């Protein structure tokens, strides 16, 4: 789990053009790695590192008095020490302003993993640094992390392409100009599909993470390059991210559409799920009676996590209603 956190943190840092630091693995006290709520820490880091620009301005307004003193258990002390060691690594690559927050957050980022969702004494409310959604006092994080299922990205190869030529000389391409004006190309690793247009623009779909999408797009560009075109790799941009998760209890959609009418659309004759258009962040959620939730429309991973943390207390409110 710590491995996951550190590697995630490293990726975020690299993307923000900060210097990378060597990975340091400090084995934590044994955790049950099979528990589904393993990556709560991932979310904490994700939400922090994705908003570095906002951090400096909002510290004054953030009330950190809820953070307890870490003194009691031996276990907690171990966690604290480990947190500090990791902290030293991160300090090298982030600004000092963040460090105090990081200490507190990182020491609290490793609550006893076996306590799933209910608040332990050490489990902090999951609030991003700049709370954009109302913070419910003493609210627990849901402990559920949405899994990314699909990433759609675009990139500009910046050269005109002869699609017939590409379809002839590439094994993994299909081209049916009567049906669609682009070549459909697929690669096996990462398992993705690309639409390549004659203008040189390309759409890449099917990846399960931002990094995989970027790698896949680069591979497609390389294929086009090897076919003899002067392909570049300009303006790579993630256009849409889709995530899904399961809240593990059935939901009264008829009740939800009544209480959240401005955001919800529930027409059982048209579609079995409720379409919830969240305003902040701007995400569309498909909520089903089984408790499965699909989140889409995000440009950043943190938007998906934030949207789910906002909807979870609302959905919990419909758990017992009958």
């Amino acid at each position, binding site marked *: 789990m710590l*491995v*996951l956190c550190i*590697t*995630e943190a490293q*990726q975020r840092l*690299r993307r923000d053009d900060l210097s990378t630091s060597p990975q340091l693995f400090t084995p934590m006290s044994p955790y049950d790695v099979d528990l589904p709520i393993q990556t709560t820490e991932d979310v904490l880091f994700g939400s922090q590192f994705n908003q570095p620009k906002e951090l400096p301005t909002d510290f004054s307004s953030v009330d950190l008095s809820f953070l307890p003193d870490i003194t009691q258990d031996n276990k907690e002390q171990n966690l604290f020490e480990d947190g500090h060691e990791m902290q030293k690594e991160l300090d090298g690559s982030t600004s000092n302003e963040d460090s105090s927050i990081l200490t507190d957050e990182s020491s609290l980022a490793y609550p006893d993993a*076996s306590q799933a969702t209910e608040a332990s004494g050490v489990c902090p409310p999951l609030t991003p640094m700049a709370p954009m959604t109302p913070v419910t006092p003493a609210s627990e994080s849901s402990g559920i992390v949405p*899994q990314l*299922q699909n990433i759609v990205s675009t990139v500009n190869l910046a050269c005109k392409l002869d699609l017939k030529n590409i379809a*002839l*000389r*590439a*094994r*993994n391409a299909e081209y049916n100009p009567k049906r669609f004006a682009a070549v459909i190309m697929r*690669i096996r*690793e*990462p398992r993705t599909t690309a639409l390549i247009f004659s203008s040189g623009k390309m759409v890449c779909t099917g990846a*399960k*993470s*931002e*990094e*995989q*999408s*970027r*790698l896949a797009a*680069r*591979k497609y560009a*390389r*294929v086009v390059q*090897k*076919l003899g075109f002067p392909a570049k790799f300009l303006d790579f941009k993630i256009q849409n991210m889709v995530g899904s998760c399961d809240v*593990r*209890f*059935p*939901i*009264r*959609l*008829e009740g939800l*559409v*009544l209480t959240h*009418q*401005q955001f919800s*659309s*529930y*027409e*059982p*004759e*048209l579609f*079995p*799920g409720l379409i919830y*258009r969240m305003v902040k962040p701007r995400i569309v959620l498909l909520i*089903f*009676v*089984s*408790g499965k939730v699909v989140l889409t429309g995000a440009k950043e991973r943190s938007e998906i996590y934030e949207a789910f943390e906002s909807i979870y207390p609302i959905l919990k409110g419909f*758990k017992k209603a*009958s």
Partner: protein
Amino acid sequence: MGTICSLLYAKQELFASVYLSLQKELGLSVPALSLADLVKTHLNSFRLFQHTADVPAPFVENKEKVVARTMQIVELASETWLVTGRHPIPIVTAAAFLSWQSLQPAARLACTLARFCKLAGVDLPPPAHLRLKELLEILLRMASQLAWLRVFNMDKKTVVKHIGDLLQHRIFLLKNAFCPEDEEEQRAAALGEASPGSPGAAGGAAQGEGCLSGGKRRPLLPPCLINPRKRLRTAAPSASDSAVTGEEPISDSEIEQYLRGPEEIRAFRKAQAWL
């Protein structure tokens, strides 16, 4: 919506998408579906409330009675998760059939749902059979909790005779026939957390008994959770997946596997010429 589409000769998907986008663009707030109104309007089109040539005498029924009982059955369906996420009309049709049958079971038990719809001059929607089956299952479980019915071996035909009683005591019967929805989850969690050995087994057994007292009980959950269709769960991203940075070097051999060799191109060209 089905009625409007048939009157306009419109395609349902087209109508649906136009309706939804209008709703979104104009910011319309449309009142939520009212099952009570739907029951009343749908039953208006049933032709079983008057004596006509093709409807046998024992099949004619008082409209108010049918409407009232259908309403109760639809409410029961709503409470037991049979309505959420489903098309409402097949539920109303199945409920109307059950309520009509139960008002004079002796004469009407032999009549099938298909025949009932034909006589009533109403379309039989395909999901109605499944909704009927689900309703009967709920009613059978409730019947198992009714003291004076426990002596009988109820099946889906005989339970219709007692729908009146079951509806009258439905609140009590629902509570007894089904365990609370999260009890199964608690039971699973307890079994999971209990240490292996006798303490765990005893704890699990005690919990299990709570759910199973007084005969078979199942949690009150939507059918999609009771009979989950086996789905391949894509594994959570492994550590190696997370290590992808997007900037890894790409080997030439990996890219070349996707390119055709010159002989292959010639062969492909020839094949294309034939097609």
